[in-house]
């Protein structure tokens, strides 16, 4: 196996992998960030309004059933190739776990807690920001974490539509099979994606430690 001795030993490969890793982080963080903003909004809306709840959840679930390759391809005629179609598609995929966990997080807040907040004279907006969201936060954060891991995985496919990221290294390998070094490329891209996923996971662990109030930590 020449993976460590030749493939990873080559500074050019390493530089390329690091650069693609940075692109991959970008390709994950931007869609997840957008999905958090949109998902938070949709989640609160779905929690508040029983009429909108099932339409919202159905639509965001439907996104995830569209095969990623198809979705990227559909978006190309509209927004062109490169990162943009990937970012749009990944945002849509990341919505489901975020919206769903926002809704179930808000529902998990003890009704008595919300009622007593109301009884103290807190307005609906204050109750949402000061009581409901902080208590729903652990569940919501778990949703963001799942969305992130999902996005890291699917983002690799973006390379097929000319997108950036570690997917490029993987597809370089796939295209060259059975040429020498093709397996190494495939493995290299995958390994870095796995490492990235682990790092993101640790990142969320730290975020949880920092942001989940001690009173509701397990």
């Amino acid at each position: 196996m020449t993976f460590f001795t030749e493939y990873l030993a080559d500074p050019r490969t390493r530089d390329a992998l690091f650069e693609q890793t940075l692109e991959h982080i970008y390709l994950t963080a931007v869609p997840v960030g957008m999905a958090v903003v949109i998902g938070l909004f949709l989640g609160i809306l779905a929690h508040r309004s029983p009429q909108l709840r099932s339409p919202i959840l159905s639509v965001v679930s439907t996104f995830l059933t569209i095969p990623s390759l198809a979705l990227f391809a559909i978006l190309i005629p509209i927004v062109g190739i490169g990162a943009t179609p990937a970012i749009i598609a990944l945002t849509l995929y990341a919505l489901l776990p975020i919206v769903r966990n926002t809704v179930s997080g808000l529902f998990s807040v003890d009704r008595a807690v919300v009622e007593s907040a109301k009884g103290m004279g807190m307005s609906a907006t204050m109750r949402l920001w000061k009581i409901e969201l902080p208590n729903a936060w652990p569940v919501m954060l778990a949703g963001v974490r799942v969305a992130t891991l999902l996005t890291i995985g699917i983002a690799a496919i973006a390379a097929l539509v000319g997108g950036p990221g570690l997917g490029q290294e993987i597809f370089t390998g796939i295209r060259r099979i059975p040429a020498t070094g093709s397996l190494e490329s495939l493995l290299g891209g995958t390994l870095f994606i796995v490492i990235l996923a682990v790092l993101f996971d640790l990142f969320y662990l730290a975020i949880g430690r920092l942001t989940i109030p001690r009173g509701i930590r397990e």
Partner: protein
Amino acid sequence: MSDQTNGDPLARLGTDAETGETMIELQELTKRFPGQETPAVDRLSLSIPKGEIVVFVGPSGCGKTTSLKMINRIIEPSSGHIIIDGEDVTDIDPNHLRRRIGYVIQQIGLFPHIRIAENVATVPHLLGWDKDRTRERVDELLDVVGLPPEQYRERFPKELSGGQRQRVGGARALAADPPVLLMDEPFGAIAPITRTRLQNEFLRLQTELQKTICFVTHDIDEAIKMGDRIAILQEGSRVAQFATPEEILTHPANDFVEDFVGTGATLKRLKLTRVKEVEPTEALTGRVDEDRETLRQRFDASDWTAMLLLDRENKPLRWLRGPDLRQQDRPLEKAGVRTRALVEPQATLSDALEEMLLGAAGVAIVVDRRGAYRGLLDIDAIITSIQTMKDAQAEYYRAAKLADPEDEVPA
């Protein structure tokens, strides 16, 4: 409401707010929930006098909780008016209204993500109090509800027991010193022993605070114990009787009230009398800082079979018998048996009886709020008290010529 009250002139005595002013006035308050044919609350009219505890009690589904929650408009009334302290609050901003009304619910609903001090400070924050004033008030209230601030201020709700949480719930409701408190089964989810203690503390506090309190319970015993007045509610929150506990027990307005109050009315009457209303007897006492020989002489000179040993602050320590005083091998604090069955003056005779039956000595030791010895209560005192009440009742029935010979209580 008068058409629903018993027609008996004697029974109506004392049902009107004869003294003081009205704090909360409910006028024809009605709630119809969508999709329900009959209103949950049907034209409830009630005057709640200032500084009193009025208990709404009734079978489940009678609308008592809905009625309570309309007062701070957690549930918006379909029609009717709520007047608090002379002001019609039916249409004012509900958030401002609620900041003036303390609210305690059975599930307590402390905010789990913030500390106890911040929980208590909720309403002061909403009212824009400054930091120092809020902090001072929080500490004062934690003290009042028996949770030393330096120990509990920084804790989270999950680190407290159920009883402690309800104390915090009470402190939070009192934070901005609202004149009115609404309490929805506040002690309903608390273990029986703790419940009795919280009820007693609450009553003691109320004698100082003089709040106007609406209190919902499904438990007639609790209603009798807590209420200055009781509104017994039937389906649709129709008032079956609105009167003092004494009235309700001795002169139930109708069959519904009689059934609801139920059997064992004599035992329930024990809940009407407080320990402080009964003259305690003196026990043979000795203090721990007295000489053993002095104690022994005092014991031998008396015809008591046991001596109550008090500590330096007069708090009961041990029951000592003759041999305990003669043996020299053990310090007095360790001799004899530990004292149990301590009751506070605020407790009811029913509580005291229960303690007596639990304790081995067959007597209850009356202590003040600091735990210092005040006297003894024995079973004879309770029997005398029951007899007095029965006599009074028999007297009433004789006077009203309602007495059924079978109901005659032998004097």
